[in-house]
């Protein structure tokens, strides 16, 4: 096993959907504790790349490495297990169960990981407090504002202490202030706990929270060179 020093890597990944070639040799590396933004226009392949990195999609060719192991060679069961135990996810829409309360939604991944009910709910309530949502534990997620719901989604993604948090346009459906609050909390918690974050966004203001960015264009990645600014 080759130790590259990166927690996550994509090497020349390709992925097609029918005749559409979403990724055409995308490569990137992510260091432990790093916040990386994947940017690019709509349809450039940035979300497909995130899904391949997270083991949701299996690439057609190329390699995906997580913590020294070939993620793309694991079978579906093992990838599912890894997603549940090592990864957290925040998407733009629809990841919460609307019939359940905020606390139920946050406790759910812990209950699936066989954590006891009392402990799961205690943790859920403490995460609600941490994300400035105390008092909302009994509220159904359909009754929360967009910003509150997204913070519940963030709590749910982080409650299992994932090694990597994948966030796909996490502020895409929020107004500027709510989006800012979500990003402030996401970055604060990631830094405090040393979490690695892979963030897909088309918004430069969101990408500016990251340590660096990778641009995806026509299914290929390009890391931007540092530029000397003209005085």
């Amino acid at each position, binding site marked *: 096993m080759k130790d590259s020093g990166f927690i996550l890597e994509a090497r020349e990944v390709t992925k097609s959907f029918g005749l559409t070639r979403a990724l055409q040799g995308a490569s990137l590396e992510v260091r432990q504790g790093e916040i990386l933004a994947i940017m690019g*226009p709509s349809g450039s392949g940035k979300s497909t790349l995130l899904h391949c990195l997270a083991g949701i999609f299996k690439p057609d060719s190329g390699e995906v490495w997580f913590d020294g192991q070939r993620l793309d060679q694991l079978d579906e069961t093992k990838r599912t297990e890894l997603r549940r135990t090592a990864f957290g996810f925040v998407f733009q829409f629809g990841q919460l169960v609307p019939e359940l309360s905020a606390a139920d939604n946050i406790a759910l991944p812990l209950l699936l990981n066989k954590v006891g009910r009392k402990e799961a709910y205690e943790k859920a309530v403490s995460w609600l407090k941490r994300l400035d949502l105390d008092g909302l534990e009994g509220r159904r997620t359909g009754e929360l504002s967009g910003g509150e719901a997204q913070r519940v989604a963030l709590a749910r993604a982080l409650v299992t202490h994932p090694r990597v948090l994948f966030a796909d346009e996490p502020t895409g459906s929020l107004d500027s202030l709510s989006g800012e609050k979500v990003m402030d909390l996401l970055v604060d918690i990631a830094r405090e706990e040393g979490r690695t974050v892979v963030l897909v966004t088309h918004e430069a*203001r969101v990408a*500016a929270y990251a340590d660096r960015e990778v*641009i995806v*264009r026509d299914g290929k990645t390009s890391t931007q*060179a*540092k*530029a000397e*600014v003209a005085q």
Partner: protein
Amino acid sequence: MSASYALLGILGRQSSYGYELKRDYDFFYGKDKPLAFGQVYATLSRLLRDKKISTQAAEQSGGPERKLYAITNMGRSDLESWLATPEKLHPNTQTVLFIKVVTAILLDKAPNEYLDAQRAAHLERMRELTALRRKGDLAQLLQADYALFHLEADLRWIDLTVARLQALTKEIQMRGVLHER
């Protein structure tokens, strides 16, 4: 120009001595860019000349004479009119970026490489501003927000230009052929 109105704004709140104006300006407006004393007094002289402020009283306590500056009715009216008038847009940055893109195409250089480098520089600055706004007070946050939104607008223009580079190159090359001697 803005410094004059910033000083008028401070005087609109209360009459002040020169050193108080400098202190208040630096506190409210210029944490990153304090106003030099020379600039404070030069601006006050202009405002006095234009009758937008007056020296209300002179006070001596053994030291040099101190002047208390106060806003006049004319000054207040000018300040209120300035506040109510939208600012002209400043397209300078965009103009420079556009000239660089066209020049790169004319010289058969790769404009996308220049634009990628420019994007990186913009994002680097946005990262600095984002860090600043996260640890600063509300006034610093608002100033950083203003700069961030402008940089973001440039970036959107850069992205759109990258998407149009092929068409732009074709158009410029065709015009170049027409202008060849």
